[in-house]
């Protein structure tokens, strides 16, 4: 279970990832409705995402995905797992 420890260290969720960093979505760890909504906006595993900014006071994150910019609530951002480039 812990064999790929190196990978484990590399993974971050979108909320904890520093701004101005790009990465590839590894997993969207949310319920069916949220996954449906996010995947409809192009956030699917394998997609490249750039975190553009993070609103202060634990606010939402701003991302760039497939040529458009989205603001996502922080709780949701927690559920999106990224492997930074």
């Amino acid at each position, binding site marked *: 279970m812990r064999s790929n420890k190196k990978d484990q260290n590399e993974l971050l969720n979108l909320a904890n990832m520093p701004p101005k960093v790009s990465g590839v979505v590894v997993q969207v760890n949310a319920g069916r409705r949220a996954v449906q909504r996010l995947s409809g906006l192009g956030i699917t595993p394998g997609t490249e995402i750039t975190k553009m900014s993070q609103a202060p006071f634990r*606010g939402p994150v701003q991302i760039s995905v497939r040529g458009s910019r989205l603001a*996502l609530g922080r709780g949701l951002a927690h559920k999106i797992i990224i492997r930074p480039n």
Partner: protein
Amino acid sequence: MECPEEIKKSITIALAGNPNVGKSVVFNQLTGLSQTIGNWPGKTVKKAEGKTYFHDYEFRIIDLPGIYNLSTYSLEEIIAREYVINEKPDYVINVIDANRFERNLFFTLQLLMLNCNVIICLNQFDLLKRRGYDIDVEKMSELLGVPVVPTIAIHNRGIHELLEEIIKMDKQEKEETDIARQNIHNFQFGKEIEEKVQAIERLLNKKKYINKINSPRFAAIKLLEGDEHCTKELFNKNDDSTPKSEEHILNEVEDARVKLEQMHGEQISSILNSELFQIADKIEKQTLILNKDQKGFKWVDLIDHITIHSFFGYILLALILLGVYTAVFEFGGWISGLVDGLFESWTPAALEFFGGEDTWTFKIFWSGLFGSFMGGVGGVLPFVIPFFLIIEILQDIGYLPRAAYLMDNFMHKLGIHGKSIIPILLGFGCNVPAMTASSIMETQKDKRRSILISSMIPCSAVSIIVMGLVAANHGIGLALLLYVVNFVMIIVIGRILTKIDTGDITELIIEIHDFRRPNLKVTLKQTWHRAKEFVIIALPLIILLGGGMEILLELGIVDPINAALSPIIVYFLGLPIGVGVYLFYGVLRKELNLVLLELYVASLGLQMVEYMSPIQMVVFSIITMLYVPCLATIITIGNEVGHKYATHLSLFQVVIALVIGGLLNWLYRLIEALNISFLITDIQMVIATFVIFFILIGIFLVLVERTKLVKKISEGRKYHLLPIGSENICVPEENKCATCPRHPAHRGNHHKKTANNR
């Protein structure tokens, strides 16, 4: 476009596309009808319809809600999907933002699966070229198998070509278009998925279901996705087929879904959408051409950066708000003064005409009806129209989603969604459009909460009272304190809301657009559209009530009503007895409270300061601020979320207003009775009252905060990797279960226990 004498044919067209691609602008340019356009995703929730005539054809045009996806996530998606499937419009114009090509194509691909005649309107083509890109329109048309028309809707370019294209398609042989449609289905998923989809398609084709759906492929994909809406449509209403055959299909679908999910280690909707995006990506790569890379400094980028900056963003937001209100009140006050002057200058002539001040005709027609008309025109419209104009501009340039981004966290603290910043901002102008704007919330619960909070925002009518009564007589400082009380009450109620309702608020998902230049003509049209609603609701009411008030005064009915209300008004709230009936008028239009009270006090031959003491003015204003929203607002709330909720909300707010008003009154009396030496003037005692009031509210708020009814969701989760199938799946540590390693699919009870033990 004028109606020609003979119409050959009538064609129905639906406009479909993502939010904010300029769909409403296309609609406006086609029909010339004014309809709300903005920069807010999902704003066109209501159905807009228009007609136009072109080359002997009559076009009936329906503007569908802007959506990202043809799933059933929101009401808008269901509306749009149902319309295309059931109403079968002759043509669907798919409006695409050329600058967000890939995501828009994702929607186009879904639309094409629905088996309808699609024409693509490639909008904002000028912006794309300015960014140094180009799109190979012919190639795109060839790949998709449908006509593509590049447009710049805001400058009315390419709009006629759209209609010409439709006429051309209409004249073509039907078979030809059918062949073109067949080509569309050449977009195939990956091998395993395609096999499953086709298997379900075959099952559907065999049965009589084929009559109920215009596209077996779309239905197959939706069934596979577990779309409840589609399943219901297909099976529950079918009386002929035996339940067994239904079960057979459903089992087959279920089986396919489970297999695919296991194979990919993802949820089905993610797998299918991912495939569609890959197709869209492929088309983008073949058609999008980069001419010259435009790098270097751009002002727009700097402004963009500032608007969402962690520090300057808030400063800018505050400055914008401050600027809006100063501008609105300065300008409004100026116009208002002009109108008042006009009215007064006409009064001598009217006196002569009606034959004296004491005649009932003068009182009813001049003071009552015409006076209240001028009051409405001078006292309300000059404040409301500039406010709408500014909000409209903010919306058109694309600022509002940025405000939502900055304020999301604070909004969540109040138990409302980040998008609620829109109704709240609107609420400062008028609560009616604020209630309508609440419909952008995704769930009914979010909508109700948003309505509850934003209906408590002091609107411009309330501001007129506070400014006209308290600030005019006792200075702006005291008036500001009243606003503080109002906002504190909103916070208290918001906090209680988050405590008693344990359900989560939907997370913010909002698109942030590039700034764009607003089109003056379109903006003015929208402002007029908003203001028109207001004029239609407000002015007639004000005029009728003003006249009615004078009639009541003439008939001598006011005094008995006041006597009946006196236990509450005089003893509990400590207000003068004459005020009672005017509070009722405030339900109809809030500013009538003050407008009519001033008329009444003037008729007694008194000044406002002589009639009411400072604390009385404060209590009167607080009551007006907090008690029921005006009638027009209540009606709008009823339309949005049901009349039962509207009634409950109104009663709730009356209680809140009475409690706060009474509390302030009794605190003041207590201070008065204590006779404290350093509190000499009335104003000092009023301020002391506020101090004690805020302390009490503070204690109350702390008590509320300490009541732990909702478990807080802790942040900073750590993720583990667990092997599932061939893929690695990450699991938050707090969800990790010691007893069972395969856990994401499993959310058993013992998980909750472990979470609670933490």
